[in-house]
Structure formats: C-alpha cells, structure tokens
C-alpha cells in the first residue's frame, strides 16, 4: 500500500471518531452519521496527505513505551505545578533565571516536537528555539542549577529522551 493512501485512511478514521464523540453519544441518529461521513471525506481529500511522512513497522514494545511515557509525563506535570506554586507563594521570589543550551540526539520533526512540548510542561523549563542541524535546544530555566551544557542536558533532557527515542524512531 502506498504511504499517501495509509495517511488518508488514518485521517479519515480520526476525524470520524472525533465527529462521532462530539455529536452522537447518548442520541443515535442516522442523518448525523451520514453528514459526519461526508464531512470526514471532505477533510480527508483536502488535508489527508500530511499526517504520516515516513514508513515504519509495527512493534508491540512501542505501545508499552507510550503508556510509560504518559504516566511519566503526568508525574512530571504534577511536580512542575507544585514547584511553580511554591515559587509564586514565597514572599521573596527565590528565582535565578537564564537561558541555557542542551544537546539532543533526536532527528525527526515529530520527536523533536514531542521533546520540546515535554520540556515545556516539566519543572522550571521552557523551550525557546530549536537548531535542528546542530541538534541543540535553547531552554529558559527559572532556577538554574548548572550552566555547563553536559550537566544541563543530563538534568533537563535526560528524563524523556530515551522514551521518546523508543516511541518515534
């Protein structure tokens, strides 16, 4: 099967499920179902070929790593929120901000996006820009522990990089 056809099928299934959940739960109706199929077809024809770009094989371990990643991300989000609440409620604002560089080994667009989003949602860090050729991320850090590039890479990116590599590459 060609790659473009696969991508179009995936887009059709996702948009139809979204339409079904929004309109159909609790009251089943044939007319709305037919309208949903037509609208999903229009979406598929217009923007169907940009979702999947590279071929890859199905592996069972990828699902396990995805579940692990979701729980890891939830735990980090809760820690981040408690950290920010502590900083904001403290009377003297104990912050030490700055912008540091970290290295990364990831190459694909999707995995870089996921890494940047995860870094933004974890304690005290916010991704500002990506330099894809050199594999460098610029990160704003609200409470700097070290400005050395290797130590910063270990503290900020080391939590997620292995899991994301298993999922996307």
């Amino acid at each position, binding site marked *: 099967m060609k790659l473009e056809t696969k991508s179009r099928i995936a887009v059709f299934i996702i948009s139809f499920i979204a339409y079904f*959940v929004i309109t159909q739960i609790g009251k089943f109706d044939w007319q709305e179902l037919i309208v949903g199929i037509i609208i999903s077809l229009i979406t598929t024809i217009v923007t169907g070929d940009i979702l999947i770009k590279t071929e890859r094989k199905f592996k069972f371990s990828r699902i396990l790593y995805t579940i692990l990643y979701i729980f890891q991300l939830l735990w980090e989000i809760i820690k981040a929120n408690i950290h920010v609440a502590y900083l904001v409620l403290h009377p003297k*604002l104990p912050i030490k901000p700055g912008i540091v560089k970290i290295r990364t080994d990831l190459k694909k667009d999707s995995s870089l996006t996921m890494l940047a989003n995860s870094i933004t949602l974890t304690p005290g860090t916010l991704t500002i820009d990506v330099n894809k050729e050199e594999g460098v991320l610029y990160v704003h850090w609200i409470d700097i522990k070290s400005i050395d590039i290797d130590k910063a890479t270990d503290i900020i990116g080391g939590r997620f990089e292995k899991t994301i590599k298993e999922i996307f590459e």
Partner: protein
Amino acid sequence: MSEIIGYILICIGLAFDFFGVLGLVRLPDVYNRLQAATKCVTFGTAGILAGVFVMEGYSSMGLKPIICIIFILLTAPVSAHAIARAAHRAKIKLTDKTIVDKYEEDKELY
C-alpha cells in the same frame, strides 16, 4: 461518591488556576510569567475538565471534556514556544536577575 471526587478535582484545578494567574502578576519578566502561567493554567483547566468528566460519567457531557483536555495539552506548549521565540527576536529584555543568556550569544546562527 463520584460527585465528591468531581468536586475535589474541580477545587484542585481552581486552586492551580489561581496560582498560575498570581504568577502572571508577581513574576518580573516575560519569560518567567510565561512559564508560571502556561504550566499552572493548563494543569488547572485540565483538572476542572477531568472533574466534569468524573461527575457526569460516560454520557454526551462526560466525553466532550476528554477531547478538550487532549486539545489543551497539545496546543498550550506550542503557543508558549511561539510567544517566547517572538519576544526574544523582538528584543524584549530579560530581567536584571538573569545569570546567563546563551541564545543571545548564538544570535548569528539564525
């Protein structure tokens, strides 16, 4: 029982919403405000929506918040990156407490 759990989740969400907004008022410059506000308000709104899901169960009103949570968790970091990068390129200054700015040093790269 599920109603009580839902109310507890909603209260936690509202508390973190309030902390995030407080950070938006108290912290000194654009990037720090962006950090506090993005993290706390995203988590707080996700908490409120999860509370609505727990209270309503598997009905029409219970499953829409799940789509909302996924959407918010995917888009809030992206808009934060966009604002931070644009602010740095528009030469908005960092606060006086800043220790290091590696992005300014590498400015000729982009």
